[in-house]
């Protein structure tokens, strides 16, 4: 075990994957010599050469299309999109091409080796364009996997699994935790299975579900609730597409209540999908309506960021309201 922050864990995962797969390439804006604006790719160019780790021109659409081509021809590209807010110029290549390569060709071609990494989320005083959580746009696209880790240990295991998965994966990294989240990380090669949620804390009264950077928010809220005698079962979904209905439904059948927290706006957010599914799976077990604590239906504001955030206090209040329903 070693102490690592999330960036170091991601860097470690990339290096391990590149060592074990000489078809793997890492590229994107500023990822070569500079090691990425957040330094997630530091040292990879020196270690693996500039043919395998390099800067691209400033074009997300180009990066994604290039990655599709590489993957379709048998390589393992890991493309960085500098901020998730800037993944939209690549949207067409991702949702129309990466996602549909296998299906449209009857599996004559596929881009199974492809991974997109991108820092997402707010809490960094970034305003509109350095703060978005665009996961729901991608969860509506069949053919893509969407993965979001909550801490360094998870980031390494999930990223290694994403790179080796035989499907295109979008791996969103919670940038406000990049340096803030530090923990023990196994030094060797390991993977966390994609599509499996992680029960982070057992509880009996309410299931509290989140992913990525919001995990520490819901953990904080659950601690407050515990002081009021409320026992929360906390689940990290980890993978949004496909998502682990079984684990979540089993938990809700036990607790009778569900709260979902995400940072993206409420309307059309992934919490809506989860709520609908769980309502169907667990209808007779529910003791209160499923609660959602999410971002407002506005673009991500700068000066009112604190008010906008689905923070621990709002989550705590919603836990209590759900208990008292």
């Amino acid at each position, binding site marked *: 075990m070693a102490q690592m922050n999330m960036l170091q864990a991601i860097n470690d995962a990339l290096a391990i994957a590149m060592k074990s797969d000489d078809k793997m390439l890492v590229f994107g804006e500023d990822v070569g010599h500079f090691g990425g*604006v957040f330094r997630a790719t530091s040292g990879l160019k020196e270690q693996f050469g500039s043919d395998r780790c390099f800067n691209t021109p400033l074009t997300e659409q180009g990066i994604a299309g290039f990655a599709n081509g590489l993957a379709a021809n048998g390589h393992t590209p890991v493309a960085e999109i500098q901020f998730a807010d*800037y993944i939209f110029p690549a949207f067409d290549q991702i949702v129309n091409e990466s996602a549909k390569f296998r299906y449209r060709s009857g599996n004559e071609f596929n881009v199974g080796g492809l991974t997109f990494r991108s820092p997402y989320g707010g809490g960094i005083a970034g*305003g509109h364009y350095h703060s978005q959580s665009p996961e729901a746009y991608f969860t509506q696209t069949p053919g893509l996997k969407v993965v979001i880790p909550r801490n360094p240990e998870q980031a390494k295991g999930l990223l290694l699994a994403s790179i080796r998965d035989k499907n295109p994966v979008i791996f969103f990294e919670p940038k406000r935790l990049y340096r803030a989240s530090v923990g023990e990380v196994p030094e060797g090669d390991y993977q966390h299975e994609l599509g499996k949620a992680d029960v982070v804390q057992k509880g009996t009264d309410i299931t509290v579900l989140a992913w990525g950077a919001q995990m520490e928010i819901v953990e904080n809220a659950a601690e407050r609730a515990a002081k009021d005698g409320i026992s929360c079962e906390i689940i990290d979904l980890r993978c949004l597409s496909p998502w682990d209905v079984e684990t979540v439904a089993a938990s809700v059948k036990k607790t009778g209540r569900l709260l979902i927290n995400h940072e993206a706006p409420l309307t059309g957010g992934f919490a809506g999908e989860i709520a609908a599914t769980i309502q169907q799976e667990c209808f007779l077990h529910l003791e209160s309506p499923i609660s959602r604590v999410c971002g407002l239906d506005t673009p991500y504001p700068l000066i009112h960021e604190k008010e906008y955030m689905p923070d621990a206090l709002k989550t705590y209040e919603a836990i209590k309201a759900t208990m008292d329903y």
Partner: protein
Amino acid sequence: MSNATLNNEIVHSVNFLDKESLTIPMLKVMKADGTVYQDAVLPNIDETLAKRIYDTCVFTRVLDERMLGAQRQGRISFYMTCTGEEAAVIGSAAALDDKDVILAQYREHAALRYRGFTTEQFMNQMFSNEKDLGKGRQMPIHYGSADLCYHTVSSPLGTQIPQATGVGYSLKMNGQKNVAVCYFGEGAASEGDFHAGMNMAATLKSPTIFFCRNNGYAISTPAEEQFKGNGIASRGVGYGMHTIRVDGNDMLAVFAATQAARDFALENNAPVLIEAMSYRLGAHSSSDDPSGYRTKEEEDAWRDQDPVLRFKNWMLHKGWLTEAQDAEMYKQYREEVLAQVKVSEKIDVPALDEIIEDVYDTPTPALKKQLDELKTHIRKYPESYPKSSGRI
């Protein structure tokens, strides 16, 4: 021009064209010491105009230096400077009409200043207070002003390029004798939006000036990893556009080129591309440290080409400026900027109600409900939301 007229010459052996096939001259009027080349055609700049240009240079230098300092002190969260590119930005802005519509990237605040954006307006934006025209929603430096025909800056790179094509076309449709002016970096010129916007401008005949600040770097990525052709100018030619390359550190050359570009665009309802060769003397932004990707020597070599100093020398030669006046201008702007920082940082943040405004023309029922719930929550925990709690 139809396809039939494209082949100027027929040959019978394979002979590829390469980037050397296209030589692109660079317009220079002034030397580094501020004297002009003997055969240079001087643009018509009188003393009043020259002073307004130089005043904008000094203000921009002071603003950049002070606000970078304010960022280091934690007073604002983020900053980006125009340092090294003042001639490119101000020289072009000065050649425009006040009603020409500017669509900037993010490093062109000097153009906004040239149009009259006040020190107070700059500071209110950077401090996200209730007087910010953008209502505190965007990061520092994302200025915009409808009064000054300057579109509010958006962070996603390149998006303003096809928009400028549309603005130019709209000006033409309105019969207005104005052009759209679009600034972007050589990095942003790699985006798909650049190619889409340029091609549309050329084919649809949009009176738009595309102004590329080729400053050598896109964050850490040097120009040689950004493109392989003959700069950005070769692309203008490729899209069938009138194109010129200028020394971006030469105020007079930039001014002359932009003035001619504007005349051409209006007369012909056609776009023009200007590539200004310059250097980003500072860091990319306050979050960046350029020592990780370039050398001090390289920076110093460009410091010798300082565009503000060069123009100052020209002003001195002309007798339109003295060293004492120059020192006094710097002193006054330093005081003015500092005084305004102190005022603007104390002004309240925008009211919480504004958080749901401008999402649509009027807030939807869902937004109103979300705001009500938010206010109820904040009233319950006023100490946890100090910026808003006293004002709802």
